[in-house]
């Protein structure tokens, strides 16, 4: 919303996931609470230590700074394994029961699939309510539209940004819980690939409204699944086949689509017409 692009968002997910590892045995509810608290705390620290001092500098500087934080946290997490001299990865058992399959007729679907969809819907509704029905939400939207004017009208910059950052921390923790149930292995690169795709989704959708950003996320998700299905699974690795007909090239196809969107609809696929705000970052 505030057009601060945070490359280190994936590392918030990673921090929350590690909290789930460390708190095994505290019960599921306790572990999740701690994870949420840790992610919110980490995001607030990030805001205080980097975003706030750099607020007056150029967007590129902030982007590079979050890139540095992302690297810092990934490698600090890596130290955990190299220090103890063991292979990378910790397993998590929180809410493991959700991996059991639910049977609907002849279909077997893991419970977590439903939980993930449910959590997504609940988060979206909660976020929409926060943005549209509360004072702080109104302030956030005002700040997103025009930061300077919003401040002139009495919106406290620090409060708004901290609130936004805290919300992003909560959402990171929710993602961490769902991701670790789906694949219960936590490594120093947990959340990294998700961040890249999510950033791309938000930029493709249009980042100044919740709805357009969400649709962008869905667009990338669908494009991913659909193309992954369409691109044959054998393909060019055999050397003689037609090149680029293998699903290993899926990332390239997605990236090309992203570049096309950036070139032809710079404000995003789902942005309102005439709404091409210049990003702060």
């Amino acid at each position, binding site marked *: 919303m505030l057009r601060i692009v945070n490359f280190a968002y994936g590392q918030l997910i990673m921090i929350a996931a590690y909290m789930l590892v460390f708190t095994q045995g505290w019960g599921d509810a306790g572990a999740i609470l701690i994870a949420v608290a840790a992610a919110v705390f980490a995001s607030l620290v990030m805001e205080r230590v980097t975003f706030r*001092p750099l607020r007056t500098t150029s967007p590129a*500087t902030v982007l590079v700074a979050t890139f540095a934080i992302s690297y*810092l946290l990934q490698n600090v997490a890596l*130290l955990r394994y190299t220090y103890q001299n063991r292979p990378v990865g910790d397993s998590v058992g929180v809410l493991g029961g959700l991996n059991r399959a639910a049977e609907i007729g002849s279909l077997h679907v893991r419970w977590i699939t439903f939980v993930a969809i449910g959590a997504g819907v609940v988060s979206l509704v909660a976020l929409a309510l926060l943005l549209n029905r509360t004072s702080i939400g109104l302030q956030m939207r005002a700040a997103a539209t025009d930061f300077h004017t919003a401040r002139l009208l009495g919106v406290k910059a620090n409060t708004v940004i901290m609130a936004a950052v805290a919300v992003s921390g909560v959402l990171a923790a929710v993602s961490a819980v769902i991701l670790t149930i789906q694949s219960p292995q936590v490594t120093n690169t947990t959340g990294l690939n998700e961040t890249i795709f999510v950033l791309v989704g938000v930029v493709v959708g249009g980042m100044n409204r919740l709805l357009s950003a969400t649709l962008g996320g869905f667009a990338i998700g669908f494009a991913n699944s659909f193309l992954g299905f369409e691109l044959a699974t054998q393909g060019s690795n055999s050397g003689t086949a037609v090149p680029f007909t293998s699903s290993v090239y899926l990332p390239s196809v997605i*990236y090309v689509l992203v570049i096309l969107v950036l070139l032809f609809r*710079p404000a995003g696929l789902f942005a309102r017409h005439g709404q091409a705000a210049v990003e702060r*970052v």
Partner: protein
Amino acid sequence: MRGVRTAPRFEGGESFRRRVDDTVQLLGPLALVVVLALIASQTVNAADDVKFRTAIVNVAIVVALYVFVGNSGVLSFGQVSFVAVGAFAAGLLTVPADVKPGVLPQLFPFLRDHSISNPWSLTLAAGLGAVYALVVGVPLMRLSGLAAGIATFAVLGITYNILTYWTRIGPGATTLTLIPVTTDYLQATVGAVAVIAIAFAYQRSRWGRQLRATREDPAAAQAAGIDVHRQRLWAFVLSGALSGFAGGLLVHLPPGSITTNQVYLDLTFLTLAMLVVGGAHSLFGAVAGAIGISLVNILLQNGENGIHVVGWKISLPQGSSLVGVAIVMLVVLLLRPSGLTGGREFAIPRRLRRRPGAEPPAPAPEPGV
């Protein structure tokens, strides 16, 4: 910048001193590289040798990055793609032709059955880097800010993805080996010096100055008749050529092997850190940052292997070096957002060259990042 100074004074020696200043601006960065190379080649043991040669090649990569990012003020995560293309082209074509069909049977015949000499491989790397940058740059140079950052990141992702899986143009996910090791201290230093000299000539040229004007104020520059898109494109292509060339230097470093992961996110992060720490707006910053971060990196890498301090062996865990680099980068960003050099070019400190009665007007500092 020269143009910033106030009305010229027609005193004897003024133009001479300007010429000296200009020369000093170029000689400062060059001297840093040459001195590093001389000291390292004479004193460093065999184990550290490769690291110092890599440091000098890193100078070339960072200066290539600077040619675009520093002069245009537009962020690019994509320059390492050109390094990758240059590295793999130069590497593949210098592997002896008689062993290639055995190790890489799926290559296109023109890649598989030919091999070229070291100088030609560097030329080819520069040429391919330029062509690739031109193809990518024509559409992408219309973007700026965040969009440019994401789009160039996408280019890096595509390059990595295709190089990792398309086995007809490269080794795919395996390691390319048997590359002749030709980047000794001489080749690394001459290469880095050439890249610095070209970057300097460019930033002093008409085109370079036009691009720097668009960096300071795009609207005013456009109003003055500067074609922003074209100037950015030229810088991008030149940067692509230099990056490809630097990739050629990189691939010929010992042990003569390369994987796609070596020219992906880690190198992107490291080179960006070097540029930002040194100061993205000056050539001197790019060179000083590259050398400074390289030295920190080497120190920490040696720490990972264990350092003996008065009878105690201290060894840092693997991965400490990138943690250290990230911390240095963050601290510099927070304390000096425009880098250690503050975006200024190298100059002899004022008090060492003051002459009675001829105090020059203070040059206006360039605005920060």
